[in-house]
């Protein structure tokens, strides 16, 4: 579905952010991209979603194809119309717009009215809390709700491939787990997902395939479950003592609930 081949991206003609990355997102799968800060994850997403130019970045070599269409040189609005929608890092919901208006803004690239109505039903089904708060301003939602709104807003464009840039950023561990479930559900309903994350536990739990980026290059790739078992990933991203160490460290004593999630 999405295929990236030997991609090189530089900023301002000097800083090489992505060096020879090749990657595949097969139809109907969830693909995770892991890596630390500065690994080139966000640059990769910008290239796909058509916002690279806004950051003065440029593709020097390589191709990015989506269902056979070359994406290099296309802008974000064109990418959305092809069925590629990105949920930006840090949620970036429109705080002064109401929840409903945020969703309408998300559907702007979707000219088909019935598809839009269907998308809205699906979003309200998936996140009932957004329906309850539809007339509230986005800025008044909690962090987790804002992330749900950001994902819901992107779904309004009925994407074939959903790009997620660090959806777990700044959220409580319980809510990160719920985001993982939401991603799995979106995928079950037929949308492919490219998930960029620093939280490897959640990402590898939900992904079919995974790539590890290191200073602009792919250092590891393969089946997500197998990758989770490799020494390198365990040491670098999951901590020494195995798969769910990250979660255990933050679990609250005696099972007390910190907050309630109603979605």
């Amino acid at each position: 579905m999405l295929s990236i081949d030997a991609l090189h991206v530089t900023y301002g003609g000097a800083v090489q952010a992505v060096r020879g990355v090749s990657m595949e997102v097969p139809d109907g799968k969830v693909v995770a991209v892991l890596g630390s800060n500065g690994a080139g994850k966000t640059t990769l997403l910008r290239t796909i979603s058509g916002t690279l130019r806004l950051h003065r970045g440029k593709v020097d070599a390589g191709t990015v194809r989506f269902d056979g269409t070359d994406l290099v040189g296309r802008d974000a609005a064109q990418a959305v119309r092809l069925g590629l929608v990105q949920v930006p890092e840090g949620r970036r919901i429109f705080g002064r717009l109401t929840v409903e208006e945020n969703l309408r803004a998300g559907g702007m690239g979707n000219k088909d009215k019935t598809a839009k109505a269907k998308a809205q039903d699906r979003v309200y089904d998936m996140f009932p809390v957004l329906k309850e708060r539809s007339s509230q301003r986005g800025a008044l939602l909690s962090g987790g709700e804002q992330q749900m709104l950001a994902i819901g807003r992107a779904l309004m464009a009925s994407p074939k491939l959903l790009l997620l840039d660090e959806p777990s950023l700044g959220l409580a561990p319980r809510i990160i787990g719920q985001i993982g479930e939401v991603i799995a559900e979106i995928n079950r309903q037929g949308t492919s997902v490219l998930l960029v994350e620093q939280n490897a536990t959640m990402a590898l739990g939900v992904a079919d395939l995974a790539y590890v980026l290191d200073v602009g290059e792919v250092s590891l790739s393969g089946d997500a479950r197998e990758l989770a078992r490799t020494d390198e990933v365990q040491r670098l991203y999951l901590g020494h003592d195995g798969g769910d160490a990250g979660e255990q460290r933050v679990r609250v004593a005696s099972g007390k609930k910190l907050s309630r999630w109603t979605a």
Partner: protein
Amino acid sequence: MTQFLSLLLNGLSLGALYALIALGFVIIFKASEVVSFTHGSLLLLGAYSIARLSDSIGFLPAVLVGILITAAAAFVIERLIINRLRGAAVISLAIVTIGVDIILLTELIRRLGSDILNVPHPWGGESFRVGSVGLSQNRLIAFLVAAVLIALFFVAFKYSSWGIAMRASAEDGETAALMGIRQGRVSALAWVVAGVLAAVAALFLVGSPTPGVTPTAYAVALRAFPAAILGGLDSTGGALAGGLLIGIAEAMAAGYQDQLLFLGRGFSAVVPFIVMIAVLMFRPSGLFGTKELTRV
């Protein structure tokens, strides 16, 4: 008291026209991040086109064509210049618009020469009276038309797709682009709307009690700038409040000029700017403007 009421009415009607111009100024700022100084000459272009065409094609068609010409000029400025300079510093863009304004203004003044063109308003120069409170018919109609246009504008801004696209891109351009919103279109449409509003304001600003189309109509548009600034440059509600406030202050200063003689004659012309400075001293981002806040 009668004089006060009369001045208040005159101020409101003048203020409604300022509000029309200021609204255009604000939406251009929101959509294109440009402080557009082209408004003065756009206004004059509107007035000039309507006055010139009225003789040959009649008043109403001339109004429609004049509005179209002004909107088209705004559109061309956006497409040819502003859109290509996207991402340039706000200050450079502002100075570019001053340049465009001077070019357009010079050409219009050359065409106007020394004639005073008149727009043959069918409602003429008569006044409308309730008891002893009077208002020129031109201003009364201006007030009604402006009120309807402003109401329409606010409804569209709140509920239409264009309004939502506009507010979303004003708040976060990159994210709006990620949602498939074409910012170029949003911006072009903002300029067109601003052009239409300026031309409508021009139609009434050159009628009674002001004399015809002269280069001084340009100075009238300049007084809408403080209206936009004191309301808060990024607030449409602020443009409305600012416009009305400036209009009333100016009308009062003109009406009571005998009592204000110690300030000199023609004081009313500078009142809008004094009000603006006074407001900004206490509220630096204007009455309803967003304070520059950065959330981390």
